[in-house]
């Protein structure tokens, strides 16, 4: 099927085509194959890819409906291709960034030099709802607070930019692997010829990282993955990862703390747990320390953690470093801690807590994306150009009432990639979330969960808001 009717817009970066309409060098193979396949063949490939997800029960749960609903993330069968050199530069940039973020976490829960030196205002840190006063004075094992990071990247005409660092319980990595499995099984020859780097070893890389972070003196740690349970939207992923790393998939009710150690209830009695890869938010980890109404957590867990008898990955309190206000200071952090220039750019961000930024935001609402500091998943945000004056006015009210809760960013022309839509190729906006792991060293699997805004013109890629996925191919040299 040809690309004759593909709506290429030269002012928006296209992942497959140069502005003049020729395919990019690293996309030639893909372009040629897609051109050779008939509409019917492509349709059947798409259908098989979709079906493989429902057959394997790869689903997520949507909130807000009357009942929790098991749904499939729609996956577009056309892969997105990234060249070896592009990836190399991303990898260096991501490594640098996570290193600085970990130094920042150690610092803000320690001496807070960065605040004393005036690089970040104290109220940005302390005012952040994710700042955990309980963690002050604690030093995380091996200096690693955020061991598992899912960084949201977008590409514009000025190159890649970091949109968000997800340092709490980032999800999506199972889709990176599931998308790969489904797409490569249906584009077999193309996949072989394209020499794509593997992502399927993510489980063993994760396991190595978790083992790195075991309490000292523990040579063969027993590892558990703590899930909020089957009603959590990412339950499939928790189950999948537990299987990949050979860990027990536990809920809070399976664990208990005794004499400062954590145990799980097994058929042979209570068994020690040394490392917990927790996919439960800070708030719910331990009702004795955080939210008292939490039924998901384990009373005494934080005590065991602080005694060094169990490792929690990621450490509690990492949310202060991926806060939307703190985000604006990450480039300064990199300069401050590492004495280097940031390799990956931030998106220009206005903090409404600053009066000149607030004024600018309110004056330019129709050209900005405004986000709530504490929200994620695409909730509570305003995409200026897609709103009516009345909606903007209502939103402005909220911003004026609590300016510190909001930040604004320019509407980015996110890059687009061809997708198979209604039997033809159409461009759709995409982003990518690679996963960066940090144990004794930094490890990155060459791939990412690539999200795509399937609705025409939409910029929102979140799965909960009509987004879908794509397989992302990083090519070998």
């Amino acid at each position, binding site marked *: 099927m040809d690309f004759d009717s593909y709506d290429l817009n030269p002012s928006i970066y296209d992942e497959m085509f140069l502005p003049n309409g020729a395919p990019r060098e690293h996309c030639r193979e893909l372009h040629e194959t897609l051109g050779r396949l008939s509409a019917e063949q492509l349709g059947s490939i798409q259908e098989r890819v979709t079906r493989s997800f429902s057959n394997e029960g790869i689903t997520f749960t949507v909130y807000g409906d009357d009942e929790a609903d098991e749904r499939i993330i729609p996956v577009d069968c056309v892969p997105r291709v990234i060249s070896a050199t592009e990836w190399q530069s991303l990898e260096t940039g991501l490594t640098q960034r996570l290193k600085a973020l970990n130094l920042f976490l150690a610092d803000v829960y320690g001496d807070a030099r960065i605040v004393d030196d005036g690089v970040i205002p104290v109220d940005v840190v302390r005012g952040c709802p994710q700042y955990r006063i309980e963690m002050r004075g604690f030093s995380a094992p091996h200096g690693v607070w955020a061991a598992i990071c899912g960084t949201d990247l977008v590409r514009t005409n000025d190159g890649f930019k970091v949109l968000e660092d997800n340092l709490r319980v980032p999800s999506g990595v199972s889709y990176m692997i599931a998308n790969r499995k489904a797409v490569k099984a249906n584009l077999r020859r193309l996949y072989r010829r394209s020499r794509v780097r593997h992502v399927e070893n993510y489980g063993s890389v994760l396991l190595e990282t978790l083992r790195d972070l075991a309490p000292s003196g523990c040579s063969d740690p027993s590892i558990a993955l703590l899930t909020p349970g089957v009603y959590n939207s990412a339950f499939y992923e928790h189950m999948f990862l537990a299987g990949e790393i050979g860990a027990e998939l536990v809920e809070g009710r399976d664990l208990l703390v005794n004499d400062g150690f954590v145990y799980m209830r097994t058929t*042979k009695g*209570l068994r020690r747990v040394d490392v917990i890869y927790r996919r439960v938010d800070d708030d719910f980890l331990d009702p004795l320390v955080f939210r008292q109404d939490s039924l998901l957590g384990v009373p005494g867990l934080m005590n065991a953690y602080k005694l060094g008898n169990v490792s929690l990955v990621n450490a509690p309190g990492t949310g202060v470093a991926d806060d939307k206000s703190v985000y604006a200071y990450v480039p300064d952090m990199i300069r401050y801690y590492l004495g280097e220039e940031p390799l990956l750019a931030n998106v220009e961000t206005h903090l409404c807590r600053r009066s000149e930024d607030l004024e600018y935001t309110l004056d330019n609402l129709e050209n900005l994306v405004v986000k709530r500091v504490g929200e994620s998943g695409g909730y509570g945000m305003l995409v200026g150009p897609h709103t009516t004056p009345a909606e903007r006015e209502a939103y402005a009210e909220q911003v004026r009432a609590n300016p510190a809760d909001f930040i604004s960013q320019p509407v980015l022309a996110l890059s687009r990639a061809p997708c198979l839509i209604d039997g033809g190729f159409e461009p759709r906006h995409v982003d990518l979330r690679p996963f960066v792991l940090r144990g004794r060293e930094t490890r990155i699997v060459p791939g990412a969960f690539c999200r795509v805004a399937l609705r025409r013109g939409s910029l929102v890629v979140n799965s909960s808001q009509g987004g879908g996925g794509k397989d992302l191919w990083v090519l070998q040299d």
Partner: protein
Amino acid sequence: MLSRSAQGLYWMSRYLERADHLCRLLRLQTEALVDRPIREIHFGWSRIYRSLDRQPPGGRLEMLHSDDYTLADSYTLADDLTFERSNPSSMWSCFALGRENARQMRQCINADMWSCLNLAYLRIQQLSIQRIWTPSPESFYAETGAEIDTFSGVSAATMYRDEGWRFMQLGRFIERTQLTTSLLLSQLAVQTHEETSGADWTSLLRIYHAFETYNRSYSVEVQPDQVLDLLVTDPLLPDSLCRSIDRAVSDIAAIGPGPDGHSSDAARRLAGRLSALIHYDWPDCKDRGSLLREVSKYSRELHHLVTAAYFEYSIEDSPTR
């Protein structure tokens, strides 16, 4: 393994066993609709409902001496037992619950087992009594039975023989013991209430794939006592009561003593007593109904003892390791 995982696998198996049992009953029952006398069809439905201890829709079963009514009734009853979502032991519910347990414990079973079960679940999700009734409900039950058999086969061929496997087997055999016992009790009860014919005992043999065996071992003439002997004591019949109980005994032994070294003693002893009832008491037993009632009571108790020993033991009793 994690207690909650073991419990999930145990229940997954129980639900699938229940679905399988119902599927066999309904396959024979819908086959009977083609050519058996109304009296026998009525007997069949009474036997099923009584064995499940469930009220039929409309409160009670009436024998209507008209083909049209019998077929219309059968449609409603089959729907109640197959697709009725509010019926916790309908096939639909058993699949949904079995699959939900599997979904939550998916890291404990392999991908082949999961996809096998999930496909069977997705298929039954899309069907309804209207869609299976014409032209042939029995082929739906045959196919569904084959799907459950495939799942068992795939499990047997691929699953690592760890504790998870043992708990799956244990769940299956405890469930099977309970289902068989209650079906036999219901056969005896319906028989005393109503005039019965040889064919009703024949269909019982067919439910357990034992008809040919019976003909070879005994005679072509079907004698109730001999049918019971075969279904209860034949060690070579895959679904015989004695075999189910012996398998449960050996699974409990293989799983081992549990948290404190003695946690499973009570369960082990009770399973042994069940086995002794069948092996040693049955042959000379005059009142087979009351012996079966004893088996039924003990097998329910066995479930509670297993739960207490491995899944929900109190933490104070348990040493840490």
